[in-house]
């Protein structure tokens, strides 16, 4: 990807194609950022805002609900859990049209809220958190804390949260990555180029006439690079998150 982004169109289309980076990457990057009708910079910002908002919201909602589902015996608990797990089988396309109508009625079309609000909670997040809290937080600890007179909210903040900090981070990462790479929903609800996320903006990098491979590749590279940088720091945790989930699944 980087190789193509840094070569000229002529170099790309010769046979065999050039496999060494050319010297044009910065020029291409500049072209991507300033491409007409494409707001690549604001797309980058939008994607970040949406991703972080969704990640934070999902972690909070999932941790609170997941704790209650794992450790509190309230009425309807088992039924709700089965219900939530059951809905995980449903493909997301099933509700997509009414969701669009709903978002439209709430006047959120073409705003970032349209991306954030429906993604605030997921069945997966809650289920995952419940499994994590069940596995990582020993019942004895909670019993001891409640006998010492701590209230449930206090126990949640002082005992449970510190234990599940790492796993919450992983869940947040999953949510962030999923939103970063989402394409179907953003294409449906976003209309003006200033509000596009990176994935949608990328598809706009097609010149009117002919093809500019270097431009497209440059865009693809710029859209992926932030994730790669993030990955250098958190890759290991993601791997353990994926593998932990697998054994239970």
């Amino acid at each position: 990807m980087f190789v193509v982004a840094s070569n000229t169109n002529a170099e790309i289309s010769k046979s065999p194609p050039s496999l060494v980076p050319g010297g044009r990457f910065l020029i291409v990057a500049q072209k991507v950022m300033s491409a007409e009708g494409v707001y690549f910079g604001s797309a980058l910002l939008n994607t970040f805002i949406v991703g972080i908002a969704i990640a934070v919201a999902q972690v909070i909602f999932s941790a609170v609900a997941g704790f209650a589902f794992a450790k509190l015996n309230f009425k309807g608990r088992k039924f709700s859990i089965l219900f939530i797990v059951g809905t995980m089988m449903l493909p997301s396309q099933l509700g997509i049209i009414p969701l669009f109508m709903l978002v439209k009625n709430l006047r959120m079309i073409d705003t970032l809220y349209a991306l954030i609000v429906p993604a605030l909670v997921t069945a997966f997040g809650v289920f995952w958190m419940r499994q994590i809290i069940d596995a990582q937080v020993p019942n004895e600890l909670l019993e001891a804390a409640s006998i010492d007179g701590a209230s449930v909210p206090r126990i949640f903040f002082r005992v449970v949260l510190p234990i599940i900090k790492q796993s919450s981070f992983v869940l947040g990462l999953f949510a962030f990555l999923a939103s970063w790479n989402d394409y179907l929903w953003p294409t449906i609800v976003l209309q003006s180029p200033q509000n596009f996320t990176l994935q949608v903006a990328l598809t706009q990098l097609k010149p009117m006439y002919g093809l500019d491979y270097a431009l497209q590749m440059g865009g693809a590279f710029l859209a992926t690079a932030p994730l790669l940088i993030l990955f250098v720091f958190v890759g290991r945790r993601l791997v353990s998150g994926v593998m932990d989930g697998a054994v239970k699944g």
Partner: protein
Amino acid sequence: MKDTLARKGRRKAPLSPWRSANRQKPAKAKKPIEGVASLDHRFGIPMVAPFFIIFLIFGMAPVVYSIYISFYKWDPLGGSTFNGFQNFVTLWGDSDFWLAIRNTFSIWALSTFPQMAMAIGLAAILRSRKLRGASFWRTIFLVPNITSVIAITIVFQQLFGRDFGIINGILGLFGVDNIDFVEGVVPSHIQIAAMITWRWVGYNTLIFLASMLAIPDELYESASVDGATKWQQFIYVTLPQLKNTITFVLVVGTIGGLQVFAEPQQIAADGGSSKQFLTLTLFLYNQAFVNNKYGYAAAIGIAITVIVLVISLINFLITRRISSDGVKK
């Protein structure tokens, strides 16, 4: 799952919905997660409520409403008229629908089975104790999964280009004529399947690796005492132990496979010259947001859901069959 749901629901059915929950002492079941008795259970519902309310509004209500509008001729501009099962009848007779099913399953098969074989093979390699830098390799395997669909599509379109693509370049060295990975039906599916495989093979490798690491060493030890070769150990010890994981990956892969959208849409938004890129989700998207046929598109959504449920059920039955056969032996 449904069976337990019904049973549990009955057992826990309260006499009065307003009576406090901690009066009933649930019998100690074998596996289900039990709450901590000394915690104040009154906090349960308030803690779940924020999640549940948002979930019902943005998760469940659209699903229910989708079923409702599938019985209507629903145009966002022209209003709606009830027309019973007409959408489903039309859908059944719509050649595009069947084409979309064919394309979706063709892409699904071309991506799932090679991917599964590769993932199990790679996991077996990663599992080997001789391998150095295990955690480095595991991390590398996850990189393709985080790269974006659109970026992958852009890159793969070039790799699979008819005249200057690297794939055709390599095939050309073996005397194969240039293949058109856009116009040809099977080649176009191969191209999409390759994109999906690239993105998910590493992820599935990690899933298989995790469950391989959970296989107890004793099984291998006793197998090797019995004189089993490495290959025999793989066939008779590793693979049977992976059964549940294989089912899991298959079901998740099927649900994912039915959602394939971005890749074909990028290559040909209308589905291509002979509709070779028209997947079910692309079909739904075009009917809803290009043709403004909401009711019809909702019917497509329901059809997709039925397919997912049927496949999951078949998968479940097959797995159960295999495991009961295993017991008989």
